[in-house]
């Protein structure tokens, strides 16, 4: 299993029935594939739809029905089309139960950086700052390292996305919970070890006695 799939599978277990969920573009968008059907979960695309469905059959794409990355989508029965003010009203107003976003860095305080690498690449924050600030629960879904360098750092060197700490970090190697005392290792992948996770994580980790192996 590749890293992205294993991350998406683990994040999917955090999605509760009957909730409204926003998935960021890229890796987070894979999560939808692993949540069970008929659980009353509604996915929001912040460009203006509540109730994303499966990708459309080839040749049946609609140029006016896309996700926030511009990819063609469908919508489920009971979907609603909304404008950007309403969409971000829901996000900022605390109506989104869960958002899953990608990350460049998360630090020891649980702060996320995901919109700017100064002097290198500046995609912009898009909806990320509103999502991290406004969603009830924020999960960062990202690979543990980039080019061998830990993305979980003592303090973000890239500009942060919000002063609000994220609730959970899910990588292909570990599930980590930011707390007031620091980053707590909750789970590690069966393909790795606690020691290896520690060595690949630049930030300090708190290791409780009951760390579990990730179930997917």
């Amino acid at each position, binding site marked *: 299993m590749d890293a992205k799939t294993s991350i998406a599978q683990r994040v999917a277990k955090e999605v509760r029935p009957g909730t409204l969920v926003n998935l960021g573009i890229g890796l987070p968008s894979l999560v939808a594939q692993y949540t069970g059907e008929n659980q009353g979960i509604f996915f929001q695309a912040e460009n203006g739809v509540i109730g994303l469905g499966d990708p459309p059959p080839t040749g049946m794409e609609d140029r006016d029905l896309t996700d926030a990355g511009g990819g063609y989508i469908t919508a489920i029965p009971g979907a609603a089309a909304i404008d950007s003010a309403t969409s971000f009203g829901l996000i900022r107003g605390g109506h989104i139960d869960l958002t899953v976003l990608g990350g460049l860095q998360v630090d020891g305080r649980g702060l996320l950086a995901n919109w700017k690498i100064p002097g290198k690449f500046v*995609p912009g924050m898009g909806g990320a700052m509103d999502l991290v600030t406004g969603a009830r629960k924020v999960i960062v879904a990202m690979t543990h390292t980039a080019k061998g360098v830990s993305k979980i750092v003592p303090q973000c060197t890239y500009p*942060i996305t919000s002063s609000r700490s994220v609730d959970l970090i899910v990588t292909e190697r570990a599930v980590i919970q930011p707390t007031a005392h620091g980053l707590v290792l909750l789970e590690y992948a069966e393909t790795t070890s606690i020691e290896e996770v520690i060595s690949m994580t630049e930030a300090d980790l708190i290791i409780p006695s009951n760390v579990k192996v990730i179930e997917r």
Partner: protein
Amino acid sequence: MKPVLSPQAAADLIPDGATIMVGGFMGVGSPNRLIDAIATSQRTGLTLIANDTAMPEKGIGKLVSAGCIKTCIVSHIGLNPETQQLMNNGTLEVRLVPQGTLVEQIRSAGVGLGGVLTKTGLGTEVATGKQIVCVDDQNYLLEPPLRADVALIAARQADYFGNLEYALTAQNFNPIMALAADTVICEADHIVPVGMISPDAVRTPGVLVDHLLKRPS
């Protein structure tokens, strides 16, 4: 009844150096024939307010490619390497704004409010040099209203009075921008006689729309 303009006549309403708002989200729901006319007319020095600059040679990206834009106020430029490049070599000024703040800044101008009080951006680079306002013991960032000289929007269907209906995710910033510009020009896929759109289906009242774009012959 609203004037129905050719793309060229619509582009002629926009002088060099104007501030324009353009609807659309990553190329979806943008007024593409209007954009083409502006790009072809080689307007320069425009300030662009939009969600994003789409992709090179697609939607709003064409205005960047054609060198029309001096400054852009947007939330995302990640899918347009041309915008990145022009920003890096100093040809294009890019002001990045959180998407929810951007749409509310436009709305606040359109509905006569003095700005937006939001927690988004507090404690980040976005808050630098900005006023903080405390309400009920909570701090908020104050972001001012954003208006344009001309708003260029897209709709699925209009009537000749300018009442508009949108479709699915092509709605995005369009109805909000219709509130916040001195002149509003709408490019609709269909234009129907007045009375053919139910009052309950109207998403942008025609009183906000100044010009419609002529349909292709």
